[in-house]
């Protein structure tokens, strides 16, 4: 799932996943742990794309995993697990983001939104990462998630539409605008990509 090529790989993986989900639903802690391990990376990336801050993102991803466990009874086992989970992650991160903005009434991650690279960033790659996170933070939330799901997680437009609960055409448009914006922001660092 993490990698598009990996995602394409698997019937056996999906079958194994169904077994894991069934075991987790029956209260098997180890099976739940395996599911967390399998989806921790994409869940944390999606949460971070929404929240900006890595610690907040981990809190949201954790909430989402626990919430998913509670809701496993509602999961339709004929459908793929990852999009269902990532939808919960996106919702958990969005909820956290709303609570955070209500509490602080501040823009998303002021440090990340700054265009000046932090003085302790010494390598070009780290600068690129910072710039990319900052640029991402400037995008509307849905656009952020759409581009991450498409270009990082390798989901198709239809799958993203299902995860975000929006039309497929809107997903295409969101990905297009996000890409154009991010490329523009990073144009001067293009050789670092």
């Amino acid at each position, binding site marked *: 799932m993490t990698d598009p090529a990996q995602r394409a790989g698997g019937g056996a993986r999906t079958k194994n996943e169904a077994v894991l989900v069934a075991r987790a639903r029956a209260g098997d802690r180890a099976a739940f742990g395996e599911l967390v391990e399998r989806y921790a990376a994409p869940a944390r990336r999606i949460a971070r794309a929404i929240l900006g801050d890595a610690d907040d993102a981990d809190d949201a991803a954790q909430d989402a995993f626990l919430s998913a466990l509670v809701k496993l009874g509602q999961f339709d086992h004929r459908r793929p697990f990852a999009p269902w989970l990532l939808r919960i992650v996106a919702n958990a991160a969005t909820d956290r983001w709303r609570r955070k903005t209500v509490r602080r009434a501040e823009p998303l991650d002021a440090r990340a939104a700054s265009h000046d690279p932090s003085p302790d960033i010494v390598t070009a790659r780290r600068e690129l990462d910072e710039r*990319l996170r900052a640029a991402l933070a400037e995008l509307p939330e849905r656009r952020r998630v759409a581009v991450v799901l498409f270009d990082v997680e390798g989901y198709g437009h239809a799958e993203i539409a299902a995860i975000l609960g929006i039309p497929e055409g809107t997903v295409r448009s969101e990905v*297009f605008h996000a890409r154009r914006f991010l490329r523009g922001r990073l144009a001067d660092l293009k050789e670092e990509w």
Partner: protein
Amino acid sequence: MNDQPFGDGPDTALGAALRRALDAGDERLFVTRVLAALDMARPRAWDVLAHWARHGLLGAAAAALIVGLLLARAGRRESRDRLDEAFAAAVAAGGAPAELASGAPPDPSIVLATLEER
């Protein structure tokens, strides 16, 4: 890089850069953290009850077995006592039960054999 505005394929360069920027690392640590939160969130009482339930079920099964054996033994003794009483009453009344139940003329050998067993 996929520069097609509505390109169907992922932009691998942008995707790789975004992945690097968003990756938090320490996946193992995160899994441990989630499982610890699960253990905290899951009512400990359930674990205690489940533990009790295992012992409780064994205890209840043993108790049921003992009570069953005692009842069976008491029932056997009671029915044997009742049989003895009925038989004694029949004997006191002057004949064996088989003889009383039958409309045929009494067989003295059966009556005598029954009385001898007593």
